[in-house]
C-alpha cells in the first residue's frame, strides 16, 4: 500500500486556480521529485501537504489514515497540528530559529513534544543527526555563524528529528550560492539511499534524475507527466515537459 495517497487536490488564491486537481501516490522509501516552471503550482502542492495551505478540495491519506478530506474540512487549527507531524518540511530559506544553536534548533520540537523520552536521549539523537549531516563541529554555533549550506543541513536534521513519515523539500538549494548546493544535495542523496520517503520540489534536473524513483512534472496546476526519471526526463512524451527541459538543459 502506498504511504501517501493524494487525490484531486484543488487550491485557489483570489479566484485563480493554482492546483486544478492533483492526484498521485508515493510508496514507502521512495523519492518523488516535482519539477515544473515557476507558477506551475509545485510549491503550493507541497504546502498543501503540510497544511501550510488548506486545500479547497481533495483528500490526503497517509498510511491509510485519512488526514484531510475536502468534503469535511477541519475547523480548528489544533486538529492540523498532529496531522502535520506526518510530514517534515525543509524550506528554501532554511527558517532556522536564530536565537538557538544548531543543536537547540534540532532538539526544540522533540523536547516540546514531551512524549516521555528523556532529555539525554533527545540530545543524543540530535547530536547523531547533526553528525550524519557532517556538522559534528558546528552543533553549538548559532545560525548566523553558519554558511547557507550548513544552515540547510541543520534544517534537514531538525525536520528528521521528529521522525516524519515523509520528508518534504521546497527548493532546498535555490537560496544557496552555487558552490554550496553540492553539500546539501549530497545529504539528500544519502537520505534517498537510506530509503527515506521524500518529496522534493526542485529546479536541479540532474539531481532529480539521480535521486528520484519517480518524477512528477507540473504545468499550469495539473500533473502534465509522471513516471520514472528515465521516462520523464530522458524521454518525455509531453510537449510542455520537452519545452521545459529544453530550457533548463540549454
Amino acid at each position, binding site marked *: 500500500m502506498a504511504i501517501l495517497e493524494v487525490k484531486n487536490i484543488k487550491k485557489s488564491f483570489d479566484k485563480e486556480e493554482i492546483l486544478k486537481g492533483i492526484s498521485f501516490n508515493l510508496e514507502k522509501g521512495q523519492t518523488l521529485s516535482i519539477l515544473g516552471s515557476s507558477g506551475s503550482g509545485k510549491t503550493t502542492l507541497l504546502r498543501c501537504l*503540510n497544511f*501550510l495551505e488548506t486545500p479547497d478540495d481533495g483528500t490526503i491519506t497517509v498510511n491509510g489514515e485519512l488526514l484531510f478530506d475536502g468534503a469535511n474540512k477541519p475547523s480548528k*487549527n*489544533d486538529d492540523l*497540528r*498532529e496531522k*502535520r*507531524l506526518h*510530514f*517534515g*518540511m525543509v*524550506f528554501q*530559506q532554511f*527558517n*532556522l*530559529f*536564530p*536565537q538557538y544553536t544548531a543543536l537547540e534548533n534540532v532538539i*526544540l*520540537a522533540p523536547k*516540546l*513534544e514531551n512524549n516521555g523520552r528523556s532529555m539525554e536521549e533527545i540530545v543524543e539523537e540530535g547530536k547523531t543527526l547533526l553528525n550524519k549531516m557532517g556538522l559534528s563541529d558546528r552543533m553549538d554555533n*548559532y*545560525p*548566523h555563524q553558519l554558511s547557507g549550506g550548513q544552515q540547510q543541513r541543520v534544517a534537514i536534521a*531538525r*525536520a528528521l528529528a*521528529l521522525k516524519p513519515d515523509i520528508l518534504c523539500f521546497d527548493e532546498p538549494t535555490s537560496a544557496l550560492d552555487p558552490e554550496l548546493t553540492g553539500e546539501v544535495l549530497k545529504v539528500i542523496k544519502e537520505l534517498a539511499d537510506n530509503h527515506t520517503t521524500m518529496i522534493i520540489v526542485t529546479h536541479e534536473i540532474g539531481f532529480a534524475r539521480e535521486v528520484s524513483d519517480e518524477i512528477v512534472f507540473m504545468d499550469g496546476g495539473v500533473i502534465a507527466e509522471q513516471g520514472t526519471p528515465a521516462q520523464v526526463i530522458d524521454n518525455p512524451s509531453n510537449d510542455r515537459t520537452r519545452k521545459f527541459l529544453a530550457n533548463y538543459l540549454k
Partner: protein
Amino acid sequence: MFSTVTLSLLEGFFGTLKLFSLTLLFSLPLGLLISFGSMNKNVVVRLPIRFIIWVVRGTPLMLQLLIIFYGPGIFFGVNLWGSGDAGRFTAALVAFVFNYACYFSEIFRGGIQSIPKGQYEAAAVLGLTKRQTFFRIVLLQVVKRIVPPISNEVITLVKDTSLARVIAFYEIIWEGERFIKSAGIIWPLFYTGAFYLVFSGLLTLLFGYIEKRLDYFK
C-alpha cells in the same frame, strides 16, 4: 545649603522614580495586550483599539493628565481619585500607564510584525502550538528588535514624569521650584537637571548592556 537642597531634591526625585517605575511596570504588559488587540483579525476589536491609540498618541500627555484627573468630577460628579496626594498619584499613574501603553503597543506591533513568516511556518510544521511559537520562537526575536525604540521611550518617560506637576503631583521639579519662593534662589530648579541626567545615563548603560546581551544572535 547645597546639601540641604540636594537632600530635598532627592526626596522629590523619589516621587519621580515612583511614578516612573510603576508606569513601566504596568504599561509594558498592558502595551503588549493592546498590541494584540491592534493586530486582531476581527475589525470590531481592531478598529476601536486603533482609534484609542490614535487619540492617546495624538493628544498631549499634559492634557490627558488634566482630563483624567478633573474629568470624572466635572462630567460625572464623582470624586474618583479621592482627595490628597494619594489620589493625585493614582490619577497621574493611570494617565501615564495608559499613554505609555499605547506607545509601547505600537513598538510591540512593529516588532511582532517584523518577524518573518517563515519563522511561524517552521514552528508550525514542527508541531509547535501557537503559545509555544510565541514564547519560544517569536518573543525573544521581538525583544531584540524593540530594545532600541523601547529604550528611547523609557528615557523620554523619565523626563515626562515632570508633566504630572499640572495636577500637583509632588516630584523633583516641584521640589526645586519651591526654593524660589522659600529661599529666593533659582539654582535648585536648574540643579534638578543633574538628577535627570544621571538617571537617564544609568538607563542608557542598562539598555546598552541588554542590547549587548542579545547580540549573540542575529
